[in-house]
């Protein structure tokens, strides 16, 4: 039931990079807010409401911290609110801090949602096109990590039952973890030799390697990529023409609201909200079909 998951692995990185590029380069509050909104919604559709709520507990203090500490380091601006240790705390500095915080939160939430969507499978696929050996190495490491964790647990239990370092003190735990790591290294290197044997047995290293994947590039993917290109083009042209210029220092400028700037806002809004809309649309459609059954 995950519409984003069905897309080709190239689609989401394009959206992610486009949104990140604009959000980080343009210091316009509308753009930051749109990016944040899109990021929040996207993160919510991917991680669920409960996780999002937990995330907010971290986001809100971070926001306040950044907004409030910026004036301590930055004394630019023309509207002093009060003086601290002989330095002016300006309205501009606080606003700038808040704006940067918005941008940071937007990027963080996009990053979180994106991290959920870009499964290791897709990462290996993207690497696999350009660098097959690197992709294979990535895949092998991913295969080994859970296996090593399991073995680490077994070693630590075996050692405990043999009466080695089974107390709970910090140094005993430290020493026993060292022992586990050291044993794990020996064990995993033996496994590595066996794995390499299995690779050779199945023809690894022959000339003319091909690569296989379960992903297909469908019409939807083409459509979404074209759409992203058009929207990004509109936004970049607008930025290039100064339609969304905004300054915090020395004084907070007026928010641009020409026809072109509205077009840029709209285009970026579409870009930012599209991934969550696809996902939400899918869920609504699902509920609709289910209600008909």
């Amino acid at each position: 039931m995950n519409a984003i998951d069905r897309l080709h692995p190239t689609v989401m990185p394009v959206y992610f990079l486009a949104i990140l590029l604009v959000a980080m380069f343009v210091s316009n509050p509308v753009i930051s807010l749109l990016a944040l909104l899109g990021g929040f919604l996207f993160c919510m559709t991917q991680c669920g409401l409960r996780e999002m709520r937990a995330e907010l507990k971290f986001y809100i203090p971070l926001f306040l911290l950044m907004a409030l500490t910026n004036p301590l380091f930055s004394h630019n601006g023309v509207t002093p609110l009060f003086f601290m240790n002989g330095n002016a705390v300006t309205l501009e500095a606080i606003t700038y801090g808040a704006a940067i915080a918005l941008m940071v939160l937007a990027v963080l939430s996009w990053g979180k949602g994106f991290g959920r969507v870009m499964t290791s499978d897709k990462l290996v696929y993207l690497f696999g096109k350009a660098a097959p050996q690197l992709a294979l190495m990535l895949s092998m490491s991913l295969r080994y990590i859970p296996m090593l964790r399991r073995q680490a647990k077994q070693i630590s239990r075996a050692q405990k039952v043999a009466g080695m370092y089974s107390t709970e003190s910090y140094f005993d735990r430290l020493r026993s973890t060292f022992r586990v790591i050291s044993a794990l290294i020996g064990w995993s290197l033996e496994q590595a030799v066996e794995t390499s044997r299995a690779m050779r047995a199945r023809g690894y290293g022959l000339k003319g390697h091909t690569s296989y994947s379960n992903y297909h590039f469908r019409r939807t993917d083409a459509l979404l990529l074209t759409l992203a290109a058009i929207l990004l083009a509109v936004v970049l042209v607008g930025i290039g023409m100064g339609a969304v210029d905004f300054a915090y220092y020395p004084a907070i400028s007026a928010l641009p609201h020409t026809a072109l700037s509205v077009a840029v806002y709209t285009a970026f809004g579409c870009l930012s909200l599209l991934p969550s809309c696809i996902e939400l649309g899918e869920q609504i459609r699902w509920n609709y079909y289910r209600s008909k059954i």
Partner: protein
Amino acid sequence: MELLQVENLTFTYPKQTTPALQDVSFTIADGEFVVLCGASGCGKSTLLKLLKREIAPHGEKQGNIRFSGVAQSELDERTGAGTIGFVAQNPDGQIVTDKVWHELAFGLENLGVPAPVIRRRVGEMASYFGIQGWYHQATDALSGGQKQMLNLAGVMTMQPKLLLLDEPTSQLDPIAADHFIDTLQKLNREFGLTILLVEHRLEEVFPIADRIMVLEAGKLICNGTPGAVAAQLRDHPMSRCLPSAARIWAGLSVDCPCPLTMREGKDFLHTHFSHRKGAAVPVHQPILEQPVIEAEGIWFRYEKKSPDVLRDLHLTVCRGEVFSLLGGNGAGKTTTLNILAALDRPYAGKLKIQGKPIGDYSKNSLYRRNLTMLPQNPQALFLKQTVHEDMEEIRKSIPDFNGQVERTIQFFAEKYAISHLLEKHPYDLSGGELQKCALVKLLLTKPSILLLDEPTKGMDAVSKAQFAKQIAELQAEGVTIVMVTHDVEFAAQVSTRCALFFDGEIVSAGTPNEFFSDHHFYTTAASRISRGLFDNAILCDEVITLCDEK
């Protein structure tokens, strides 16, 4: 038509004087199912690896290996990799990638097969092996049986003509092992796939093989049909490895063809020993006093919201007992052992060790001269460069050993015949040798309770017989042993009591003779063969004795 020809193959490992293989010659015809067996260290693994050029060990090699008439060294790379498939012992070690689908495609990618063809072959193979259900899963999330099936499927996508398997079922539970062997048989029957299988679990494969070859100390001593080889081994120490029906036949001097399957064994007994009908093995009830493990109403689950693994478990084990827990995978046997060793904590119930509640043991006093556990994977016990260094570590565990460590190690090493292994690296030992060293390492802590988790996994018949002897000695010294095992034959041989574990509790328990003659499916081969003729006979030796009694 001959697919594989081996002529006068002699092989010596570097820095060794005695060859691992000596003048071995045989041929395998297209479509044959051949089983190669022999004691640990007889050279069967070496032989198998030599047949696959890509993984052949380094050393001095003489003689010829020909595949479809072409010398091995002349085979082109793709043929060498693709048409000879190899499946090894350890299900985990052979898996290369993190996802099942990628693992299936891996070999074909290496051969440079175009993606659409890979899609077709992988799809076909996944359907045939019943992999569709877990096609997208992570390889690490699979069970041991599934992993080995995946390894087989991953080789089969490359469409090999000859399949070499090195003890593929030794790390699997009996049900997964049966399924694996059945699949091999099916591949052989339905697709004419030529198979050379190295195995020590012969009960199942002996009757279905076309030919059996036996290696001893690097020499091929038998090569013939299963019946002929069984007859040839009649008085050989290797006869221990034969299927139960053949072992009973070997123990009796009756002049008739050797029975191989259970049914043939049954027919054989009824034909020749029907006059002994009704004979019974006397049942000795063990004297149960001095309980050392008392568990009452144990409930356990791994996480708050996961289902219960143990439900109201009651278990009492007395001093000097050998108590075997049998049952399917996931029934909670290993969990029980972990709870007895205080590695996991039940959320309800009482547990006393030596009469003392388990919570009252402070820090690691439970593991000092009291209770210890042999893990399923004994490699987890060894961290150092030699076995000896590892054993010396026991100083840290038992501080009051002062000066006695070396003498104790030497004493145990001699007693268990592992002196020659002490200076070796733990990972260079065979499964049976490692198990023995692990046991000795644990015995150095002078335990009075020994928990064993699948101790016979991967052991051949000879090592198993030695291990059974050691258990009997420990028992005589008053050590209490609780063992979790899938190996019914072994449990029947060494236990004082056996119990069947199902759905988080013990559903039946009793002396081995009572226990196995009461069960119809969960029982030994000898019991199945002699059922209806004799009462309570569960071991081949018991059947032989009952037949022989005048």
